[in-house]
């Protein structure tokens, strides 16, 4: 079994206004898996559902977000469970310690009115009750030093640090308990290139040391080129392609991935780049059939009526597109069982 297996996962934002229900289909029948010790990059336009997918994989599910179907199965160190069915207490135990999160916008995990040392202590205490105070201190300082951060950050308040330093502190905090798997949501977005490189350097160093599995979300393909081993492309709530990094950059298959790769600017090359025509669909009212069909230059009749299934086209290269297979996705008619409410 893989470390993480996601099956037919659907999670919508369900809101009611003036008696009308509105469903935002942010995660729309997604199936994929991640292996131990692998770094996967998740890419896709803003608003396509990347952050929502990560939240569901971490079981951070607050209304109006609701999981309508599917399983999020983890398997490691002899443990096996569907994260979505865990009790509160069990969930609290695995979150952070085994399954950790670097949220988008580094301010959200650092408490603005607490010194950073206190925030670290809170996290360690919550998970490692048996250990002594000296032990906490040692763990904390070792980790901070190992990651190349000055020890002074521990005695600072979040606002006293620069954006880059704060982001690196958040990463240190998320990894203090040596998690099995880390989900990082846009860890480098809005940082300048030099700081961005420092953050990537740090993630790679952690991966070397802790051997954890990482899912890194960013819309910046150049960042993926430098960290990911495998890349998943998301479009309008669905994963449309997964491939080894090199394969994805040199031979993308899905028409959307092709647009994405072709449009990337490169220093030293000024040829005109064009991006996909049209606009991404609203997830509250996605087009029928393949979500990309209204913008696709190869659209066929079937694309307008059916959703293509994500199939294994070649070894470790999965594609959801009728250009490569005629398999139709099941699940449109899945009974929408409500797992959590």
């Amino acid at each position, binding site marked *: 079994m893989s470390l993480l297996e996601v099956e037919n996962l659907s999670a919508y934002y369900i809101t009611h206004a003036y008696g009308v229900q509105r469903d935002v289909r942010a995660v729309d029948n997604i199936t994929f898996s991640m292996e131990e010790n692998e770094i996967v990059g998740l890419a896709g336009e803003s608003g396509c559902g990347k952050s929502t997918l990560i939240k569901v994989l971490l079981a951070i599910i607050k209304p109006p977000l609701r999981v309508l179907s599917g399983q999020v199965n983890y398997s490691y160190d002899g443990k096996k469970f569907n994260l979505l069915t865990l009790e509160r207490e069990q969930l609290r135990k695995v979150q952070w310690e085994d399954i950790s999160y670097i949220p988008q916008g580094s301010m959200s995990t650092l408490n603005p009115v607490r010194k950073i040392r206190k925030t670290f202590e809170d996290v360690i205490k919550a998970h490692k009750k048996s250990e002594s105070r000296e032990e906490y201190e040692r763990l904390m300082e070792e980790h901070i030093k190992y990651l190349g951060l000055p020890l002074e950050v521990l005695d600072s308040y979040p606002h006293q640090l620069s954006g880059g330093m704060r982001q690196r502190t958040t990463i240190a905090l998320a990894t203090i308990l040596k998690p099995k798997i880390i989900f990082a949501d846009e860890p480098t977005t809005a940082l300048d290139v030099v700081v961005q490189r420092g953050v990537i350097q740090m993630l790679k160093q952690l991966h070397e040391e802790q051997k954890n599995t990482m899912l890194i979300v960013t819309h910046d393909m150049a960042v993926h080129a430098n*960290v990911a081993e495998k890349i998943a492309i998301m479009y309008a709530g669905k994963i449309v392609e997964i491939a080894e990094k090199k394969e994805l950059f040199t031979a993308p298959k899905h028409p959307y991935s092709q647009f994405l790769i072709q*449009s990337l600017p490169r220093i030293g090359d000024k040829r005109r780049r064009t991006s996909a025509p049209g606009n991404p669909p609203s997830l509250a009212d996605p087009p029928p059939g393949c979500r990309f069909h209204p913008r696709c230059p190869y659209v066929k009749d079937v694309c307008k009526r059916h959703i293509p299934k994500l199939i294994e086209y070649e070894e470790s290269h999965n594609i959801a597109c009728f250009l490569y297979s005629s398999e139709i996705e099941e699940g449109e008619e899945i009974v929408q069982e409500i797992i959590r409410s």
Partner: protein
Amino acid sequence: MSRKLLEVKSVVKIFHIGGRFLGTKLKAVNNVSFDIDSEKPEILTFAGETGSGKTTLARMILGLEQPTSGEITYKGKNVSHIQKREELLEYMKEVQPIFQNPFETFNPLRKVDSYLFETAGNYNLAKTKGEKAKLVEEALKSVGLTLNEVQGRYPNELSGGQLQRTSVARALITRPSLLIADEPVSMVDASLRMSIVNLFSDLKEEYNVTVLYITHDLATAYYISDRIAIMLRGDVVEFGNIDKVMLSPLHPYTQILLKSVPQPDPEGTWKEDIKLSSLEVKEFSRLGCKFYERCPSAMKICEEVEPLSVFRDGREVKCHLYSEEFKKEEETLPGSF
């Protein structure tokens, strides 16, 4: 003699942090000079890490902030001396800002097109509703949108791309000669990023608009710019033709900056580690070169003496490695030619 659209002459901006008398001074912009020709529209990029003074410079050009010393003139008129309402209006008509985040530019409770009509009304460009609609429609057309697509819509009903295009369209209503775009693509994804920068190129080509493009995205900067200025802690450390600066950078900071740009190339992963700056304020207050602590080629002189800008190989560079004095010293070294 060609006429100048914009001239920035030895501009300095000092902020007092932590109280005017007891606190320290921070030179956010240090002696910056450049000009833009009015006959030759261009895309001029200001790049550099966060906190290097880019936004402060932009705000001074927009007249939102006064320089501590030096002057900024637009078509020969000193921007700081604009006082009369009509003059200010005239200036704002010609020089328009575009901001970073389209989702913050627009109030979620206000219909998007109201911003466009408001701008059309503010500058006495049109009187009747019909005239205004015509202006709005034209501006939207130049960014590839129609009034139909945005009319009556709230920001959350448009995609990020449509919103950022709308904010460019708003800036175009007054038919400006100069757009000041402060990190207009830093919050948007790759495909949208390209459509916005392509739009800037088209505006330059078709409508003779000059764009001051502030960014830390060096890949798009290379793709659209004619010239580039690299800023570091208030200094412009290298400035000139885009190909010269980006393909054969001279300043050690430009070199590191360019090496840090992640390339969308699966083979091009970075090998060596880099040194990050520790404390911003400390670097700002350095006597010598601001890059001294992080520079792999730092010399003794760099610690104490601020380098002068010199002209080398088609660009200006502010570094002792290239300054005359250093060359002279080097010439007297024993055993050298």
